[in-house]
């Protein structure tokens, strides 16, 4: 059975595929939205990891990552807004978009690397059995 939220994700993905992901999201953004959000990951960690010390360390890592991502999200939103503003004008030349898209791409690349680093930091703190539980997907 499909939950309303899952349905919503499917619908949103199609609309966002072009505009939001192309201009304001990289691989990490796609995964946070379409695979698993940070809040869902935290819930899984809290449920699966019984050792309090390891659990706290992982949750702290996620919190730090979240606050850095929030900052980068703001940067991306500002960069995207600038891009959309110049695209609105008919006299804008293609070359004028290049510095903006280059900055966006650099920020998105940083976000992707940070996402993967977090993934590996979490994995290093859990056993393979815990990992299997954390990444398990609910039956559709």
């Amino acid at each position, binding site marked *: 059975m*499909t939950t309303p*939220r*899952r*349905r*919503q*994700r*499917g*619908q*949103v*993905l*199609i*609309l*966002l*595929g*072009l*505009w*939001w*992901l*192309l*201009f*304001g*999201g*990289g*691989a*990490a953004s*796609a*995964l*946070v*939205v*379409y*695979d698993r*959000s*940070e*809040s*869902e990951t935290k819930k899984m960690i809290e449920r699966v990891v019984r050792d309090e010390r390891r659990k706290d360390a992982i949750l702290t890592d996620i919190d730090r990552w979240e606050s850095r991502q929030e900052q980068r999200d703001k940067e991306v*939103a500002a960069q*995207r807004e600038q891009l*959309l503003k110049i*695209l*609105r*004008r*008919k006299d*804008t030349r*293609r070359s004028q*978009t290049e510095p903006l*898209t280059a900055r966006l*791409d650099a920020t*998105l*690349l940083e976000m*992707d690397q940070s996402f*993967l680093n977090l*993934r*590996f930091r979490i*994995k290093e703190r859990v056993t*393979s059995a815990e*990992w*299997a539980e954390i*990444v398990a*997907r609910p039956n*559709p």
Partner: protein
Amino acid sequence: MHMGGRRIGFAALITSLACALTLTVAGCGGKEPTAHQTIERYGQELRDEVVTHVPDGERRARMLMIVDELAALQLRFSQQTADFVASYRKLNAEYDTPQATFDQLFSDYGTKRIKARNEVLDLHFELASLATAGEWEAIGKKEMELYEEASEARPGAASGK
């Protein structure tokens, strides 16, 4: 005649890709008319602006083709995103997948995103160059409205934050 055939082919492409996408990412049972409607609406709204504001038949036909190409590009990129998410899930499920494998997956997806984004920009500039200043006032405004609508639709609801 040519445009009609193109339209039928495009509608079929939308239907098949929308179903593939919702099946892959949303895990739906293949009955997601709203997904199809969503992408149809995007193309239709822009198409309506072109039809309403561009009186010249030849330019209008070229601009409508660009709108169709933009929508087809959206579908292609959406499918690439669905494939990327599916590949990530597969690799992520394996405890021992090396970081280099993820790096490659992310890099490949990034390359596809940048390619698609550049194609969108090319089409955007082609569309703008075909319009007169007066026509662009309405068409450009609609295009940006669709961008902004999509950007605003993204955070809270979808990420569950």
